[in-house]
């Protein structure tokens, strides 16, 4: 993961007018759908409160819940692995593939495996990972990167997708119509799905009290992966655990309405362990930390671990809507990415991301688990500044301003000095003047008027 230099990457992305049009159109469509299905639930705010409370309770009791989950999964015939970081998790998955002598695995769309670079790690081990989610497949075949949490190929239009498929499937006559493109993908994937002996998935939720794993999806390709192969490996961030089965009642209302603007997603798969003669006969659960326990140690920042990856915050973000996901340089783009990436991978990674927001608050309003993203953005700015990191106007400017504001006589004098200086195009004003005229500077300040008036 490299997430330095959001401003520069954003500027490059903004130059692509086609990308901006695609994104603007796509995010507006999802926003409209989401608003409609959220608007029909009078208890939506109560659901959000419940969702936040469930996740907070789980995070507060994480060690016990994870051990309970392990006991239940093992009792149901599964194997549980604990991975401190991505490298360990990748090694666990690769060794399972080696044991079963498979050279190809099918994959259910999963952020956790993207986060740890599992596909690349498996390739090094001689195992090719085939993405089966349509958009993930497009991105994989294009040797591209996902740019959205739920809609990974949101940055590509249908003509670009046609070109990717035409090249990958050696079909130059393929037409850029959705039906033809879907059919081409279907033919390609059916063959992979029917021959696969091992599948890898992520998890949307895991229930501690029952050992149930839950994956939600739209296409049904995930269901294929979860049922057809002999071996199933689920890589799950440790924050995905919820205490009780009843908690799913809340989560499965919040997630589809927020993510795709649907009342219920088309496929919800729930399983625990292994069922004899039905589905995979070997099940592995990899519990992934990869920075999560250190996020948990931050009292303000830890709320980011409530995230259920719905991407509603991306769809309403005026920054994301214009730059797209690649500008964030992380598997997790948008507002949630701006608070997750620096926390998961260390403040050195993505230290410009907490400033990739105007703090407009639209993300917090839609978040189904009420993560106060603007608050955490400010909190991370503070941690980076106190860490000696890059301030915005520079620490010297900020300290000088603070000095001036600590006394009213200084402030009055500084105003007199500042007015003529503000007419000069220097310092931060240069960035301002690229697209905005300077305000006309008044001769006298408010204080002068107030004093004269007596």
């Amino acid at each position, binding site marked *: 993961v490299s997430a330095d230099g959001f401003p520069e990457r954003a500027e490059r992305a903004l130059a692509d007018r086609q990308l901006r049009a695609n994104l603007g159109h796509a995010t507006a469509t999802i926003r409209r759908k989401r608003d409609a299905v959220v608007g029909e639930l009078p208890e939506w705010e109560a659901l959000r409160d419940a969702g936040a409370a469930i996740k907070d309770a789980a995070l507060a009791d994480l060690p016990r819940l994870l051990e309970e989950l392990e006991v239940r999964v093992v009792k149901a015939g599964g194997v549980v692995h604990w991975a401190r970081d991505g490298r360990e998790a990748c090694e666990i998955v690769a060794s399972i593939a080696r044991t079963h002598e498979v050279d190809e695995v099918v994959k259910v769309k999963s952020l956790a495996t993207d986060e740890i670079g599992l596909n690349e790690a498996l390739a090094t081990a001689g195992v090719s990972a085939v993405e089966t989610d349509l958009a993930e497949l497009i991105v994989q075949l294009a040797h591209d990167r996902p740019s959205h949490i739920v809609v990974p190929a949101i940055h590509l239009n249908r003509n670009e997708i046609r070109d990717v498929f035409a090249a990958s499937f050696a079909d130059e006559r393929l037409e850029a119509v959705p039906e033809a493109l879907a059919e081409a993908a279907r033919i390609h994937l059916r063959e992979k799905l029917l021959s696969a002996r091992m599948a890898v998935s992520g998890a949307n939720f895991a229930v501690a009290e029952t050992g149930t794993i839950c994956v939600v999806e739209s296409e049904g390709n995930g269901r294929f992966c979860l049922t057809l192969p002999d071996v199933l490996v689920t890589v799950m961030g440790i924050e995905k655990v919820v205490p009780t089965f009843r908690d799913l009642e809340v989560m499965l209302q919040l997630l589809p309405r927020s993510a795709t603007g649907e009342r219920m997603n088309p496929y919800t798969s729930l399983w625990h362990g292994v069922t004899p003669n039905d589905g995979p006969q070997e099940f592995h659960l990899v519990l992934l930390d990869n920075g999560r326990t250190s996020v948990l140690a931050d009292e303000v920042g830890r709320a980011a671990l409530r995230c259920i990856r719905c991407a509603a915050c991306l769809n309403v973000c005026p920054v994301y809507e214009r730059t797209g996901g690649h500008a964030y340089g992380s598997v997790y783009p948008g507002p949630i990415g701006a608070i997750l990436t620096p926390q998961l991978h260390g403040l050195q990674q993505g230290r410009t991301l907490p400033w990739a927001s105007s*703090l407009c*608050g639209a993300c917090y309003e839609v978040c189904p688990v009420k993560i106060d993203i603007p608050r955490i953005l400010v909190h991370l700015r503070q941690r*980076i500044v*106190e860490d000696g990191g890059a301030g915005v106007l520079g620490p010297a400017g900020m300290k000088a301003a603070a000095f001036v*504001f600590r006394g009213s006589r200084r*402030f009055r004098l500084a105003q007199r000095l500042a007015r003529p200086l503000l007419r000069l195009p220097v310092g931060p004003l240069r*960035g301002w003047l690229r*697209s905005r005229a300077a305000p006309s500077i008044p001769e*006298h300040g408010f204080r002068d008027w*107030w004093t004269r008036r007596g």
Partner: protein
Amino acid sequence: VRVALFAACFNELLFPETPRAVVELLERLGHTVEFPEAQTCCGQMHANSGYRREAMPLLRRFVATFEPYEAIVSPSASCVGMVRESYPRLVEGDRELSAAVAELAPRVYELTELLVDVLGVEDVGARLEARAVYHPTCHSLRGLRLGDRPLRLLRAVRDLELAELPRADECCGFGGTFAVKNAAVSTAMLEDKLADVSASGAQLVVAVDNSCLMHIGGGARHARLPIETRHLAEILVSR
């Protein structure tokens, strides 16, 4: 009612006509306005940029300056939001200061809150011939949740024609230091806001934060668009 004015440093320096309009408006309505001269800045820029340590003395100064007053008004939604939302967090762990902030914050009103909720007035007797749109700034809309208070005041202004602003709830792209730090994204947001204003046919953009208006107005002048910006207080004092 005796009201203390928090002008906001930004307004004092660049937009003195806005706090002036607040004084004139409240006096016209029969109230007394005081301007505690010890006031400077609420600390918002520092706190939001990550300079908590630098913000704290400004916070203490604000609390000490305005503690004696029963009602404080400010023509800056983002500063009021700073006091109401961020101050309680910044003083967490300091019992004395927390108590002082908890006492003070509910008495700090944004201008339209003071007019509509406290003084119970919507028609202030203003008149202005213009076609305008109201841009709900992020801090006034999602922070303070001003709702339709500004619109109720504007609808009562004689000869003022209020047009519909498409995507009104979307950020204009100012965002404090964001406007400079991420100038390209800020500009892209501004361009879309200006296109929406142009589409509305309005010649005037009204809001309750001069910082956003400086950004929108600066963009309009840079692009040579026939769009002007004015703080709501100045509209309400027009005759």
